[in-house]
């Protein structure tokens, strides 16, 4: 059998986002701009992955920086740091950290989809030869990265892997950690690809030293219509997802 993640969920359970319920309303997010950077990381990143999941081979991480000009919570920007792996047979990105740019978006992302969202600053800027992203918290830059030399590709050439968040779900009088699948749809209007450069990555902030870039893979930026859909699957964080998955709808 493939390897499994080794994250011990209990010590961090109390800090996880708490979902209100599983009747999350879907959000339509039109005209989004999404920068994604991917790089290979250390095998030791297995320590950050829930035991329900398998690591990707080779292990890799993605930084996804999105600008959403419209949403039910108003315009906001979002940065997701994800460790990629497998939920059973399916590629999934486990969300290690999330930074959102407005209090309303932070609140909704935590309560409705279980993102470990924190309030921070996110800028996404396009220049003639690069697209840059800066993610900061308390005015301290945590990540500075860029897509270098963008070249047009088809939206069909880009594949966004669905996310899973680790959050507490209400279970009677208690709440327990679960993995929540977040699986947006995308309709691409424009896509570009380029090299990636990570100029700063304060891994210690998220206890994610093992996610430091070892080898760059690629960067892409798209303009697309997307969503944050209703929750369809939740999974036990401690047992293989092939045994611990619950279909919600």
């Amino acid at each position, binding site marked *: 059998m493939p390897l499994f993640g080794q994250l011990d969920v209990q010590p961090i359970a109390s800090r996880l986002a708490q979902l209100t319920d599983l009747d999350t309303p879907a959000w339509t997010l039109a005209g989004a701009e999404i920068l994604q950077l991917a790089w290979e990381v250390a095998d030791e990143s297995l320590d950050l992955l829930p035991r329900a999941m398998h690591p990707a*081979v080779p292990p*890799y991480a993605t930084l996804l920086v999105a600008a959403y000009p419209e949403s039910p919570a108003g315009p906001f920007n979002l940065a997701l740091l994800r460790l990629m792996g497998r939920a059973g047979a399916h590629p999934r990105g486990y969300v290690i950290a999330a930074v959102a740019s407005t209090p309303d978006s932070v609140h909704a992302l935590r309560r409705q989809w279980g993102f470990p969202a924190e309030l921070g600053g996110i800028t996404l800027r396009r220049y003639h030869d690069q697209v840059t992203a800066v993610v900061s918290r308390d005015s301290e830059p945590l990540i500075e990265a860029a897509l270098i030399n963008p070249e047009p590709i088809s939206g069909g050439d880009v594949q966004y892997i669905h996310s899973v968040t680790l959050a507490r779900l209400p279970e009677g009088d208690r709440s327990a950690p679960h993995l929540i699948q977040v699986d947006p749809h995308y309709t691409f209007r424009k896509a570009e690809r380029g090299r990636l450069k990570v100029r700063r990555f304060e891994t210690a902030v998220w206890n994610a030293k093992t996610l430091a870039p070892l080898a760059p893979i690629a960067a892409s930026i798209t303009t697309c219509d997307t969503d944050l859909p209703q929750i369809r699957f939740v999974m036990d964080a401690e047992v293989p997802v092939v045994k611990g998955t619950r279909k919600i709808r």
Partner: protein
Amino acid sequence: MKFGIFYELSVPRPWTRESERTVYNNALEQVKLADELGFDQVWAVEHHFLEEYSHCPSPELFLTACAMITKRIRVGHGIIVCVPEFNHPIKIAERTAVLDILSGGRLEVGTGRSATWTELAGFNTNPDTTKKSWDEFVRCLPKMWTSEKFAFEGEFWSMPSRTILPKVYQRPHPPMWVAVTSPGTELDGADRGLGSLGLTFGQFAEQEKRIAEYRRRIQLCNPVGEFVNDQVSTVNFLYCHEDDAIGLQRGRHMANTFNYLASQLSSVREVFPAKSYPSLGLLPQLRRQATGPEASEQAGEGLALGGPERITKALKRWESVGVDRVNFLLNTVEAIPQDDVLDSLRLFAKEVMPAFAESKVPVAGGR
């Protein structure tokens, strides 16, 4: 219809000193029996770094061992990754010629370009160029095998005039194939006169459509070699048991385990936005089928699992949609005990093979 076996050589964790050796030795024992039972080909893949799924980076060595312990089964080197970072074309020409000589002219040559980020990045390969390098390689290989002197100047490799030695034993040269996972690759093969070495399990209707288009296109081909190989081969699982229910249950476990391991591979497209890998190939299908090794209720359409009658029926259906050859995966991560694998082969040869004896067609050249 002809029957073959093929090997990924998957090795389960934990990897011990003996576990790899056991997998290789079991495979060799199966090949020897398959030869005696009348199977027509044994194929071995070239894969690198694919943990558990395939520990077969040097198929030419495994196939040489196969050739040495068998008399008539053909040895399929497939697929050779036709990307310069993996294999230099001169080395491909030389080692395939040696294997053809050692096997007494029993070599089949499969070509491809790799579809996983794990492998391509491991060799520091640009995924954008693999299709082009594959094209360059397959056009050169037959000339390297057959011309006394060969010189080449291409985009991916060049050489001054030299005599590439030895020459292949078969005349004019071994049959050539292209590995087909992504829809459309079979047409790339057809245009070049290459056999279609399908690596997708199941799905009669889709395969039938693709085979029909392949047949149409290959009529118009500009062959890269000195003859056209217009054969269509597909892969399947094989577990044959007198008791249909036992055959199904054990076979499905093996198939689901394989599919689950395959679904762990990081395809190029999953990781790297690439124009040259427009689809995930066989992975989406395998992911749909594989909810885990315990997913015993699942079995894809047309799999050769169960009792002889069920398997015969499935293979007759494959024959009717135009498949010339079926290559069987016999085991994965040793999910089925070796004695049961050997019994399955024997039962298949006794009960199923005779139903196809009269429909055998000659190998497409190369003898």
